[in-house]
């Protein structure tokens, strides 16, 4: 009877442990990073008697979390790629929107400007027509400048997000190192008796960190987790943390941040952007390197070409007085093409150089052979200026000013589409990986409800065993009475 009572007690204990785990699962069903837990119940060692082995009830062997390293890694990989595309997509959609409205882009300003040139060609001696040309040129300059300003704002936002992402990465790295230390202290029995909930929390930190930057991890023999970025640069080893840092080493391009890894011993190493391929940081850097720089360069090139080519033709002509020549129409920004940094900024320096309508060089030169004089209603140079609109000057003589701008729009549009498609594809992959991981580790409340009934019943059954033991004992006592 003592055995019966004892066995009943082990049943109560086991059912209680199961109910504990079940209720833990129920309450953590929505906890991010939580992996459902199960209580491991085994049989007690049997008691040998001459008639054989008698079972001694059950015992609680441990609490295990339903976790698969492989499935977890798949989620990490898919999530890093998805986050990269998301961050890239969020940035590039700003460019896409900027170029979306056909009435707000450069196209209408460029067309208006050349319409102004045509008007001067038609009415070369008309001061109002000349004044109108200067006005349309100023709107063209304003459009170039405002596009440049907007691109600079997008750049500033991009750089700001790089910095704040790095700050978050550092914070997560410190938390993971902290967690390593706490897990080491708590798992006194060694890694074989896992502190499930802390491991979940640490894994969740890695998941969050991995959304920011693609990391690889390695579980050390002492149960601590080492975290690496880039091509294996260690971010966390045990409780030691390296920090990422944004530095701005190029005085010519003071807005551009470069990423350095500062080790715990303060030694630092510069990490090229190409190392970060994954996570939001990867997306931000890719947008900067692939799209933003390229868009700014293309716009800068267009600004320089318009100014330089128009100036070259304008300098060949003569003003209304028929004598003044070699006049720049636009500010000379040609030298900015020499260096990639200033080339990106050229559209911001695009400006109209002349203010006197009489200075517009619509006239061709004196030509005694043909008996024509310069100045007045001589419009020979204005016709040549107007012809620049349809001349293939850009990209090695393959594109007009307008088609060069169209190429910029189609470049950004195509890239945005590519990123959107990539994002959708990675989202689907992440969904699949998450589903596979959740199928194993996620909490199903119906299942827990069923377990609740089941373990309640086993509790009741074990209690019944004890009550039977009590009744039997009473029978014995009643004999003695």
């Amino acid at each position: 009877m003592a055995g019966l009572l004892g066995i009943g007690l082990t049943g109560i204990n086991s059912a209680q442990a199961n109910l504990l785990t079940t209720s833990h699962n129920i309450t953590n069903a929505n906890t991010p990073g939580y992996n459902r837990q199960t209580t491991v119940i085994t049989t007690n060692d049997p008691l040998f008697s001459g008639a054989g082995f008698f079972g001694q009830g059950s015992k609680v062997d441990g609490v295990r979390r339903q976790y698969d390293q492989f499935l977890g890694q798949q989620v990490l990989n898919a999530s890093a790629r998805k986050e990269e595309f998301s961050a890239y997509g969020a940035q590039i959609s700003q460019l896409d929107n900027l170029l979306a409205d056909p009435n707000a882009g450069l196209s209408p300003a460029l067309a208006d400007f050349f319409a102004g040139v045509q008007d001067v060609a038609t009415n070369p001696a008309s001061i109002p027509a000349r004044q109108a040309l200067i006005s349309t040129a100023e709107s063209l300059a304003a459009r170039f400048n405002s596009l440049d300003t907007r691109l600079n704002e997008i750049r500033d936002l991009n750089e700001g997000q790089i910095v704040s992402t790095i700050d978050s990465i550092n914070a997560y790295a410190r938390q993971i190192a902290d967690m390593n230390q706490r897990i080491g202290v708590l798992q006194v029995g060694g890694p074989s008796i896992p502190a499930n909930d802390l491991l979940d929390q640490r894994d969740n930190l890695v998941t969050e960190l991995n959304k920011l930057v693609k990391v690889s991890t390695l579980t050390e023999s002492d149960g601590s987790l080492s975290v690496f970025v880039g091509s294996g640069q260690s971010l966390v080893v045990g409780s030691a943390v390296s920090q990422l840092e944004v530095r701005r080493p190029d005085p010519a391009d003071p807005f551009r941040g470069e990423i350095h890894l500062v080790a715990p011993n303060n030694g630092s190493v510069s990490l090229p952007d190409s190392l970060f391929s994954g996570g939001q940081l990867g997306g931000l850097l890719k947008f900067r390197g692939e799209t933003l720089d390229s868009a700014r360069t293309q716009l800068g090139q267009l600004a320089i070409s318009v100014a330089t080519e128009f100036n070259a033709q304008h300098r060949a002509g003569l003003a209304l007085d028929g004598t003044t020549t070699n006049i720049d129409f636009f500010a000379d920004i040609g030298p900015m093409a020499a260096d990639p940094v200033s080339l990106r900024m050229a559209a911001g320096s695009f400006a109209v150089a002349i203010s006197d309508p009489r200075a517009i060089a619509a006239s061709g030169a004196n030509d005694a052979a043909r008996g024509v004089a310069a100045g007045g209603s001589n419009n020979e140079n204005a016709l040549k200026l107007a012809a620049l609109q349809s001349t293939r000057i850009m990209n090695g003589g393959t594109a007009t000013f307008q088609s060069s701008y169209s190429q910029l729009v189609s470049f950004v549009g195509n890239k945005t589409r590519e990123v959107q498609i990539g994002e959708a594809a990675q989202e689907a992959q992440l969904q699949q990986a998450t589903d596979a991981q959740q199928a194993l580790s996620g909490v199903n409340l119906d299942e827990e409800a069923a377990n609740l009934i089941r373990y309640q019943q086993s509790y009741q059954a074990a209690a019944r065993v004890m009550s039977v033991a009590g009744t039997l004992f009473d029978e014995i006592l009643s004999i003695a009475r």
Partner: protein
Amino acid sequence: MRISTNMIFDAGRNAIQRQSSEMLHTQQQIATGRRILTPSDDPIAASRALEVTQSQRANEQFQTNIGYAKDALATLESDLGSIGDILTYIRTRAVEAGNPTYTSSEHQAIAADIEAQFGALLGIANGKDATGEYRFAGYRSTDAAFSGGAFDPAAGPAAVAYRGDAGARSIQVSASRTMPVGEPGSGVFIVVPNAATGEPESQVFGWISNFINDLRNPPAGGLSASVASAIGNMDTALDKVLTIRASVGSRMTELDALEELSAAHGEQYAQTLSRLQDVDYAEAISRLSKQQTILEAAQQSYVRVTGLSLFDYLR
């Protein structure tokens, strides 16, 4: 496959979000009438639309230029008509002057008449256009084209010097055609350098002046040689004017053709643009109602599926 409760909620939520975002896109297309909301919707069509718009704008500019060119050529054509009339009239008067029965007083009257025509011709030669520029001065349109020509009651008017140049202003009337829309006075009034001074002088005015002088001071051998030479000279001048007038006429015909072509191009550009960027309403609205059906189904199934819970049966 084992399903976790989160999977049920997430899958439902994702489906609703996807449908909502697609529906919003369609709604925006319908509201703006634009198929391409951002270049990424159709990068090729978006950049193509920019180029077509540019061609459309250039085409509109050419239409404006054609208008200018037609106005300028019409004025020139009417000027040339008046010049031709005057030259023909002078030629008729010269033939009359050759009548051997005419007396000196009749010659004086003819001289006075031709002198008046000389003045009228000089008036046309120094005509201004609507913007105050001298029509026959070539590129030097800010100053009077011709100077001199002062009347002298005893002789012919003074020599008429040309102050303009040989420039003929051109206007671009199509992508590949730049058309001259003026004629310098040097061509119309046959300007050559003066033999003595080298200064450019109009032969037409010189010829008329010489004839007036001869009428007033008949040469010793009589007027017949002067009359013959005046008739010959007027024929030469008329030939010149008629040649120019024929060329102006053919240019005006060309402009009419270009104007029609340009209008046809404009139509095509508008159609291409519409095809590239306008939304097809019938398609978009049927797509919207399809998306609405799917979204409603997603919402209802979400409520149904997430409403199932075993806990509801635990009492």
